[in-house]
């Protein structure tokens, strides 16, 4: 709560800048329109116009807020025009992908930590995999998974893309975490003649928890991005990604920005939720003070 005031201040500053930018970026259009209509407009008329254009280059904050309000509260949440409806679709694919990606990432990390051959071979390729432009392969993944003989439902295809972006931060963080016990902690178990399994469950896994949570926060935001990217080619029927693109086709800038903010809110909310789980877990484990 200590940070509420600073956040509000920063937000206020951003909104002020934003309004200024709105006037600056949209004025060209106002003047052009006036010129086409053959009338002159005063500065104040221009400013008023930039706040209320239908296709602004940059919509004013209140226009975006209105769009968001319209999308969230202005409809039944089951309506296809509701951001809650589209957000839910994105959310469900995100969570599925996040679960798959996290599971895969943890498994890979366990493999890397316990098997030297995997340690040496997997990491460079995991890095390379993340340099592949996801937007380029997403359509192919959708086509291949969605068609016969696999006939995977779109929810799952989207989740696969989300998982692709999720697994990497999890692998990196988890490898670091599983390797975080120092020599003394490992030696202690060695004097007990503990097995590899016991070492994993009683030392490596608990020691990795702070690292795991740090990566999960990065990963869940990545999963949202992955889902949205995957929603573009999946037939663009529903989800925040589809909504974003549709706004784009028709130059409905306000709709784009509203969807954009909804997506960022979804991601930020998920990060916060993981933060809460993190704090609870670590406190339970005695690792947070």
């Amino acid at each position, binding site marked *: 709560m200590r940070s509420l005031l600073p956040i509000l201040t920063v937000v206020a500053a951003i909104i002020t800048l934003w309004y200024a930018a709105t006037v600056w970026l949209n004025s060209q259009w106002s003047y052009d329109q006036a010129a086409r209509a053959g009338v002159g407009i005063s500065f104040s008329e221009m400013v008023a116009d930039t706040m209320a254009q239908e296709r602004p280059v940059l919509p004013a904050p209140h226009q975006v807020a209105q769009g968001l309000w319209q999308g969230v509260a202005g409809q039944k949440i089951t309506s296809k025009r509701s951001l809650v409806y589209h957000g839910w679709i994105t959310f469900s694919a995100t969570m599925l992908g996040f679960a798959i990606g996290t599971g895969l990432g943890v498994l890979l990390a366990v493999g890397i930590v316990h098997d030297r*051959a995997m340690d040496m071979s997997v990491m460079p390729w995991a890095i390379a995999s993340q340099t592949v432009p996801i937007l*380029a392969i997403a359509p192919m993944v959708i086509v291949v998974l969605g068609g016969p003989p696999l006939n995977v439902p779109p929810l799952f295809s989207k989740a696969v893309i989300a998982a692709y972006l999720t697994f990497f931060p999890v692998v990196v963080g988890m490898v670091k975490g599983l390797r975080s016990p120092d020599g003394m902690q490992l030696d202690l178990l060695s004097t007990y003649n503990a097995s590899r399994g016991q070492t994993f469950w009683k030392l490596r896994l608990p020691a990795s928890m702070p690292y795991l949570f740090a990566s999960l926060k990065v990963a869940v935001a990545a999963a949202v991005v992955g889902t949205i990217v995957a929603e573009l080619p999946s037939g663009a029927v529903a989800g925040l990604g589809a909504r974003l693109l549709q706004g784009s086709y028709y130059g409905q800038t306000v709709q784009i920005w509203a969807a954009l903010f909804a997506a960022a809110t979804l991601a930020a909310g998920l990060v916060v939720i993981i933060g809460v789980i993190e704090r609870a877990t670590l406190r339970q484990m005695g690792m947070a003070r």
Partner: protein
Amino acid sequence: MSWLWGAILFWLAAWGFNAWLARQPVAKTRAVRLFVPALFGVTLLILWEGIVRGLNVPGVILPAPSVIWGTLKSSVPILWGDFVQTILKGALSGYLIGCGSAVLTAILIDRSPFLQRGLLPVGNFVAALPIVGIAPILVMWFGFDWQSKAAVVVVMVFFPVLVNTVAGLAATDRMQRDLMATYSASYWQTLMKLRLPAAMPFIFNGLKIATTLALIGAIVAEFFGSPIKGMGFRISTAVGQLALDMVWAEIAVAALAGSAFYGLVATLERAATFWHPSQRGR
């Protein structure tokens, strides 16, 4: 079918060989450390080739690596032009501007805990804006050429680097700071001699994440409008033309460039943070 089984057999053999090699004392040598992942990569390619040939996957769905290699060889001028447009102009300039301004911003807000507490959560929120949404807007603002791609990259890399740098600047321990206090060192002296060096491991963490982000950002931004060159342009156009071999050739270039970029930053990191336990271990 024999192709498929052959590939799977090769895979198992290579896996076994790698596992054996990793257990040998020579595993620590540089050559083996390069060879093992290379063999792993070759195995993936052969498996891919085997699946495509063995299952008769049509080329318009997934071309075989051999076909992609052919396209790669015969299209060097196109690929080079795209590489210059997207990586050198778009990604690299955006990366430098974005990372540079992020570090500077971190130093600027460092003196004000108030700004930090306010800016970081808002920054995290902005960083969560999906680029597929931002890219069209920036293309609208900055035009179709590489400048808008660089802008997308700046937006993408700015916050990860900022957050890491701010965390890094706070990463000194109390004793290290107290030492400076007993010298009655000025703010800038403390910054230059203690906090920036101590922040380096964190900053490089951010810089490494930013490499892959920069690449993805530059390529993806081209999907939303571009001149008729660039890797993102080529990929989307080639998909429309069912020239999947070209698509994969570009993806290969992207992966190669991305890995090289990452490797370069990792090398710089090793040079700059040689003193950090994580670097000393090896």
